[in-house]
């Protein structure tokens, strides 16, 4: 009887420690997601400045600038961090803005006056640094999500996770457009 009691206590202790580790992993993944959001906020704050400078010179790129503004508004609207689909959509929107901003940076090359504008140079440098931070935040997020998902999906973690309502989180994945092979001849015309 005593042995059974000790065994039960041991099982309870192990289960509790397992639960603690799951919660820790989930919190790390959430912290990593918050890290992405901090960087996205920095970028969102920077985008209007870049657009203001660009607008002065870019008469023919109105549609691109409007698209960027719309995407920025969507991205800053907020989302449910506990809903995997909402997280996935939020990350996709962030990626779409990244893609459009990349397009803008390439377009800047066609405007020598804008390209050499000191404020624009500084803004682009800062933007590139924010992009590096976003990319790093995604790497941290994916690493944290990988640990969480492994713990959530393997028995007995899966059992404890379902009891504690800890769910797997979506990875940040590159968009289809980013995965497409680059045709160098398009750029070397």
């Amino acid at each position, binding site marked *: 009887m005593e042995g059974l009691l000790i065994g039960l206590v041991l099982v309870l202790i192990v289960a509790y420690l397992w639960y603690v580790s799951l919660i820790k992993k989930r919190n790390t993944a959430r912290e990593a997601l918050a890290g992405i959001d901090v960087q996205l906020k920095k970028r969102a704050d*920077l985008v209007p400045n870049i657009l203001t400078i660009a607008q002065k010179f870019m008469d023919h790129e109105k549609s691109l600038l409007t698209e960027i503004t719309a995407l920025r508004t969507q991205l800053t609207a907020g989302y449910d961090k506990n809903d995997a689909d909402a997280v996935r959509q939020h990350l996709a929107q962030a990626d779409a803005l990244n893609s459009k901003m990349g397009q803008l940076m390439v377009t800047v090359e066609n405007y020598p006056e804008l390209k050499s504008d000191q404020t624009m140079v500084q*803004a682009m440098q*800062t933007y590139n640094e924010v992009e590096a931070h976003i*990319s*790093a*935040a995604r*790497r*941290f997020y994916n690493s944290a999500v990988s640990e969480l998902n492994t713990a959530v999906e393997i028995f007995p973690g899966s059992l404890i996770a379902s009891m504690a309502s800890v769910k797997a989180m979506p990875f940040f994945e590159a968009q289809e457009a980013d995965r497409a092979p680059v045709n160098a001849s398009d750029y070397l015309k």
Partner: protein
Amino acid sequence: MNMLSFLFGAPIRAQRAATGLKAHKDDLPRLQAYYDAEIAPLSRKFENQRIRALKQARQRIYLGLGVFLALLIACLPLIKPGAQFVPFSWIAAVGIAFLIWRWASSPMRQYTGAVQSEIYPRIFRFFGPDFVFAKGQDMGLRMFKEAKILPSYDKARFDDCVLGSYLGVSIGINEVHLLREERDKDKSRDVTVFRGLFISLSSHKAFRGHTVAIRSRGSLTNFFSDSHGGLERVHLEDPQFEKMFDVFSTDQIEARVLLTTAFMERLMALAQFFSSRIQCAFHRDRLLITIESSQNRFEQSSIFSAATFEDEFGRIHGEMKQLFAIIELLKLNEYTGL
């Protein structure tokens, strides 16, 4: 020639033929032009001085050996048959031998000293007019200690120091020897815990967190501890890098901004280039690197080699290029709005 053949009377001849600078073909023309203008003219003078120093040293060694043997023979009648050779006699013999060696080798020391004071400052001026080379200077040990990449030590000895800048980033290189006092019963002795280079690169933007890459502690240590000096473990994607280094940081995101795949490759290349153990820390507004090496870097490799200084120039150029690449890669020179 080596020390043994030198002692046994190998002929001492001047070697004036250049062996050729070793560098990447893109760098070679600029390197060669500087060498021809600034270093080659001194080479003849130093080759003469080297030959003179070697000849003088050998004469003194032979003379000193004769004096030592004569003293030994003179002392023989004083030793009574059956008497023990007291420790004092040993100490006196070793002391005399040491003094003779110091006197005999002083021409060689004068030569290496002259090479250091005249050639090395010229070599470093190639990288910029603000590069200075000094002996025995302490670049600042405290910042390395605070960055948590040093082993515990009791004494520090400083040797050569190089200061300069590249793209507005200040560079400091210091040869350092760290010792720890170890007690064994009543005796205490100094044990080397680090010998090598300290490198400090300034950054125009202060780092938000504190990130260190130390040499791998092994999976067992990492299993029991996921921290280092209050910093949290950062798991990176490159398995090769993970095998060589353990990374810890107070800022997981910044650690990944700094340790990009390109930087990881650069750090591994640096370790391979110096064939040494390397550790680094991003702390406050500096990137600090320690490179363990028993080699004395800023001295002519051997007094028995010709005084062309081509090897030394080529090697230092290669090492500095690695540092410059790190500055370019990390954009330590850029001001941003962050």
